[in-house]
């Protein structure tokens, strides 16, 4: 089976004035379609940086990256934005929903912005996704009237809107209480199982990692067990 993500020799060095900090030191990473992978590591180990590079939010200093068979390191900013929009989904620790929009509109947003409007088909899919994440009774609620856990479930539905092959989650349960976090984890496992969507979940929480099918640990900028 062809790997969904293949990263080879990814290196990342940040410059802060005259000081250079090497965060990633030639990381190799392979994700197969349908995997639910936890990316673990201590603070400063470079896991968020690696997640951002795989999510095309950051350009690596060196190395090659292929996603779904396409080399992406040479893409322009616009091409990277289009790639993210069509093929990647994101779940962040802080949901950052658009407060002036309803739950349905927030979910439909990634599809509506490039299209210019929320079409009836987009609205239907957004509502289906909200029903699936257990928010059928909150579809027309403004984002500001949802609880923290509900907002994060809306964020998961939003990440699924464009049927991405790869979903990148950065501490998705980090700002939730234990009950809400469990629901979110269950939901991600369900999506992974039923939609065959690949998840790369960046976390420092062993409990989250235990619910994943594979774990990758970053240690001082290098991968153990890639």
């Amino acid at each position: 089976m062809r790997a969904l993500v293949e990263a080879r020799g990814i290196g990342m060095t940040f410059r802060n004035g005259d000081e250079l900090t090497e965060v990633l030191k030639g990381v190799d990473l392979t994700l197969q379609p349908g995997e639910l992978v936890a990316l673990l590591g201590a603070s400063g180990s470079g896991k968020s940086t690696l997640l951002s590079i795989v999510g095309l939010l950051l350009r690596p200093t060196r190395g090659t990256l292929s996603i779904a068979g396409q080399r992406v390191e040479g893409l322009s900013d616009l091409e990277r934005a289009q790639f993210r929009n069509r093929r990647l989904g994101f779940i962040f620790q802080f949901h950052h929903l658009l407060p002036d929009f309803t739950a349905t509109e927030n979910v439909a947003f990634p599809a509506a912005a490039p299209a210019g409007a929320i079409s009836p088909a987009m609205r239907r899919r957004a509502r289906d996704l909200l029903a699936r994440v257990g928010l059928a009774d909150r579809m027309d609620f403004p984002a500001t009237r949802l609880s923290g856990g509900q907002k994060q479930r809306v964020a998961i539905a939003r990440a699924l809107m464009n049927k991405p092959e790869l979903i990148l989650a950065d501490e998705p349960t980090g700002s939730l209480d234990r009950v809400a976090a469990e629901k979110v984890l269950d939901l991600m496992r369900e999506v992974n199982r039923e939609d065959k969507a690949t998840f790369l979940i960046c976390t420092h929480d062993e409990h989250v990692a235990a619910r994943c099918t594979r774990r990758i640990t970053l240690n001082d900028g290098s991968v153990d067990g890639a």
Partner: protein
Amino acid sequence: MFAFTVARRYLFSNPSQTALLISGVSLGVTAFVFITALIGGLAIRLTNDVTANSAHISLEPETRIARVLPSPDAELESVAIISTFQRLQIRAWKSTVSLLQSHPDISAISPQISGSAFLVKGEAVSPVAVTALDPAFIDAISSISTEIISGDASLGADGILIGSRLAENLGLSSGQPVLLRTDRGIDRLLIVRGVFETGLQSLDERVAYLSIQTARPLFLLPEGITNIEIKLYDPGGARELATFLHEATGLRATSWQEKNASLEGALDAQSQTGTLIQTFSLISVLIGIASALSLSANRRRGEIGIMRAFGVSGAFIAAVFLLQGLLIGMVGAGIGCACGFALCSWLETLTKPDGTMALPIAPGEGGYLVVFLLTTIGAVLASVIPAWSAARLDPLEAIQQ
């Protein structure tokens, strides 16, 4: 357009802040309209006051200048002598009048004989400027007949109309005889047919009106006239038309602006002051819009970061902020224009105890289209910096914050 929906939602998300912002824009636009209408009204009033009883353009013969005549003998110089007794006149005035009558910008024409004379009543003598005109068109330039306070405006063959101050100085009233002695040394006894009062001292004290036929023998002009006075539909076009008429007729054409250069300078200075005030009021409006949108862009960094992460283009983000500027500008300018018009219309109705307008304001001169366009375009330009900074936001940095 989804960017428009987002822009609209952003504006409605904080109604009180948006209302304050639009109120600020409206206030600036209202001030702009008020200043423009006031300056326009003042200019109209001054122009009307100056031109109500005088011509917009005067055509007169070119002044003769003594010149050296060519001579075959280099040692001899001949000079053409100009008779100071011979009056300057327009001989072919009828063809000139025909030409003027065909011009669409000209509303009235009055061929005249103007000259100096004395009015003698007993031992009282007073200098007068005589204006002799066709009695059928006595009101062509100055509406004398409506200013008559005693007698009437029928000049006839031996009639004269004089101003109220002149009548008072000479002890004259309508129906009484008076001797007119012209600068040609010719005397004629005339009857005061009417006394007028314009309120302008220069006219009421120094001007007398005669029939042009009565004036011909008195000023030794059996055929010609001394000047043609012209009124225009639009006094503002007098300068350009005067230039054209000078070239077309060869006569000296003087516009009312030329005759009142100091007034024109005052109007220009007033207009420049107004422009300065208008510019500052617009700049303050635009700074307000730019700062409000910059704050909004900063407050929404997280949302913008997420949008960018999901592949929403920088152009979309920029469009959201530019559209907010456009909406604020259009709505604010629209409300400001309406408030400005209402304010000016109300001020126009206020009068002083003597019944005249309290403020020389002209609501129609508010410059509404100009201020609407300037504010709308300016508001979009003011939102360029917040739009640009929002569009360039690094999604990762914004999300992590």
